[in-house]
C-alpha cells in the first residue's frame, strides 16, 4: 500500500522545477541579478566609495568619447584575433599530425597529447608568470640571452609596446592551442574513412584530400572552435594581468583590464559598468554567432 504522501512526493519529482530549483536559484541570485544590475549601474555616475549616485547617460558618453576605449577594443580584438589564427593553424597542424600518427601506429602520441594539454591546465596567472620569467630582459632571461648571442641584441618582449601584444598572444597560444587541437582532432575522427578512400580512388593526393575532404567536412567544427576561441580571447584577464598588467604604455590593455581599472583604481563604478556592458554586448554577439553556427551544423548533420 502506498500512502498519499509518498505519492505526492513522487509527483513533486515529476516536475522539472524540483530538479532545476537549486541551480536556478544560484543562477538567479548570483548571475542574472548582477547582470541586470550592471546594466542599471552603467546608466549611473556611481562611484565605488560614495554611496549616492544619479541616473545619467554620462558614463556611456564619456566611455564612447574616450579615445582609449577604442584603443582598448582594438587591443582586445587584435589579441583575440591573433590568438584565433595561431591557435587554429597550429591546432590544426597538431591535430592532423596526431591523427596521422595514430593511423600509422607511431609511438609517443599519448606523451605528445598529454604534454600539450598540460599547458591548458595551468592557471592563467601562472602562465603569465612563466612567460614573464622566460622572456625577461634581466640577467635571468634565458631566451633573450640566446637571442642576443645569436643576433647581437635582445628583444623587448615585455617592454617594447610594439612587441608586447604579440608576446601576450604567444603566451595565450601556448596555453590554449591544445584545446583547439582536441576539438579539431575529435572532428577528424568523425570524418568517415570511406570519404578518403573514395578521394584516393579518384586520384586525389594528400593535399587535394585535405583541401576537398578534410576542410569542407571539418568546416563546422572549425567555425565553432573559432567562435569559442574568440570568446575566450576577448574574456582573457588573468594571463595579461600577470604578464604585462596591460603595459607597456597600455599596449596590452584588454577590455577586462580596463573595466577593472576604472572601477577599482579610479573608483568609477558607472564608467566601469558601461565598459562591462560593452564587454557583455561583445560576448552576446559572439554567442549569437555561435548559436547560428550550431544550428547550421544541426541541419547539415
Amino acid at each position: 500500500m502506498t500512502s498519499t504522501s509518498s505519492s505526492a512526493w513522487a509527483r513533486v519529482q515529476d516536475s522539472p522545477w524540483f530538479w532545476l530549483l537549486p541551480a536556478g536559484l544560484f543562477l538567479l541570485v548570483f548571475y542574472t541579478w548582477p547582470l541586470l544590475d550592471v546594466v542599471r549601474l552603467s546608466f549611473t555616475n556611481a562611484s565605488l566609495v560614495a554611496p549616492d549616485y544619479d541616473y545619467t547617460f554620462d558614463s556611456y558618453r564619456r566611455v564612447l568619447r574616450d579615445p582609449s576605449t577604442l584603443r582598448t577594443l582594438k587591443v582586445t580584438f587584435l589579441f583575440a584575433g591573433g590568438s584565433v589564427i595561431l591557435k587554429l593553424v597550429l591546432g590544426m597542424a597538431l591535430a592532423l599530425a596526431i591523427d596521422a600518427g595514430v593511423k600509422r601506429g607511431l609511438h609517443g602520441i599519448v606523451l605528445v597529447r598529454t604534454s600539450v594539454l598540460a599547458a591548458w591546465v595551468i592557471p592563467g596567472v601562472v602562465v603569465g608568470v612563466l612567460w614573464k620569467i622566460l622572456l625577461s630582459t634581466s640577467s635571468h632571461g634565458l631566451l633573450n640571452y640566446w637571442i642576443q648571442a645569436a643576433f647581437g641584441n635582445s628583444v623587448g618582449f615585455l617592454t617594447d609596446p610594439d612587441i608586447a601584444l604579440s608576446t601576450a598572444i604567444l603566451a595565450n597560444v601556448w596555453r590554449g592551442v591544445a584545446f583547439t587541437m582536441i576539438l579539431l582532432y575529435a572532428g577528424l575522427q568523425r570524418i568517415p574513412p570511406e570519404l578518403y578512400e573514395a578521394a584516393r580512388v579518384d586520384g586525389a593526393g594528400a593535399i587535394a584530400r585535405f583541401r576537398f575532404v578534410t576542410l569542407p567536412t571539418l568546416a563546422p567544427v572549425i567555425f565553432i572552435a573559432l567562435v569559442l576561441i574568440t570568446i575566450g580571447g576577448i574574456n582573457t584577464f588573468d594571463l595579461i594581468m600577470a604578464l604585462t598588467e596591460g603595459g607597456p604604455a597600455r599596449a596590452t590593455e584588454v577590455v577586462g583590464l580596463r573595466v577593472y581599472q576604472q572601477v577599482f583604481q579610479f573608483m568609477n563604478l558607472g564608467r566601469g559598468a558601461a565598459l562591462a556592458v560593452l564587454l557583455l554586448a561583445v560576448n552576446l554577439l559572439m554567442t549569437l554567432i555561435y548559436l547560428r553556427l550550431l544550428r547550421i551544423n544541426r541541419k547539415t548533420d
Partner: protein
Amino acid sequence: MTHANVEIGSAGGRRLANTGLYAIYAVAVLFTLFPILAVVMLSMKQPSEVFSWPPTFLPATLNLDTYIYVLTETTIGRMLWNSVFLTACSTAGCIAISAPAAYAFSRLKFRAQKPLLLILLVYQMISSMVIALPLYRYFEALGLLDSHMGVILVYITVEIPFTVWLLKGFFDAIPPSLDEAARIDGASRLQVLRIVILPLAKPGLAAALIFNVIAGWSQFIIPFILIQRAEMLPISIGVLNFAPGQTEGEITIPYLAAASIIAMLPALTMFVLLQRYIVQALTGGAVKG
C-alpha cells in the same frame, strides 16, 4: 590494431613521412615543456646565480632550498590550502547542484527546456568580470568580502552552465529504458538518478570533477575582486605576491619561479592522473553542445 589509412607507397617515402611527424611532435613537446622546464630549473637556482652572466639553463646545483624557503617561510601554504578549500567546496557544490538540473534537461519534457538550455549556453560565454562588479557591491554591503563562503557561491554559479551541459551530454547517452525499468521496479526519480544514472555516468562525473577542479584552481577574476586580505587569497592570485617589487629587484625571482611551480603542480598532477576522462569528454562532443 589496424592502420586503415596508411598511405600505400615506398618504404622510404613512409619512413620520411614518419620522420616528419616525429619532428612535429618533438617541436610541439619542446614548445610546451620548455617554459615549464626553464622555470623549474630557475626555481632551483640560488638567488646569487640569478645575477651570474651568462644565464644557464641548468642550475649550478640541484637544490630545493627555494622550495623549502617558500613553503616554510611564506604564506604559500595558507594560499594552497585556500585554493584546495575553495576548489573542493565549489566542485562538490557545483556537481551536486548541476546533476539534478542535468537530469531534468535530459529526462523530463517541459516547455522552457530549450530556452533555459540556451540561457545556460549564453551564461557560459559571459566574462566573470561583468558580474563581478555588482557582486563586489553586494558582498561589501553584506560583509561577505574576504569570506570564502561568498566566493564559493560565485564559483559554483559560474561553473553551473558548463557542468549542466557536460552532464546532460553524458546522461543523454544512457538509454531511457533503464530509467523506466527502474521506475517500474519501484524507484522514485531521485532513486533512479542515484542508483541507475549516476553510477552509469561515472565518466561524466569524472569529467565534471576535473573540469571543475581545473576551473576552480584557475579562478582569478572573482577572488581577485572579492578577496583582499592576503591570508584569504587562493594561490592563483597569491603567486603574484611573489613577483619582485621595485625594492627587492631580481633577488626574489627563484622564489617566484618556485611559487609558480607549486601553484601549477596540484592541477597538473590531477590532470596527468585523470587525463583519459578529459580527452574523452572533449572528444565526445560534450563541449560543443
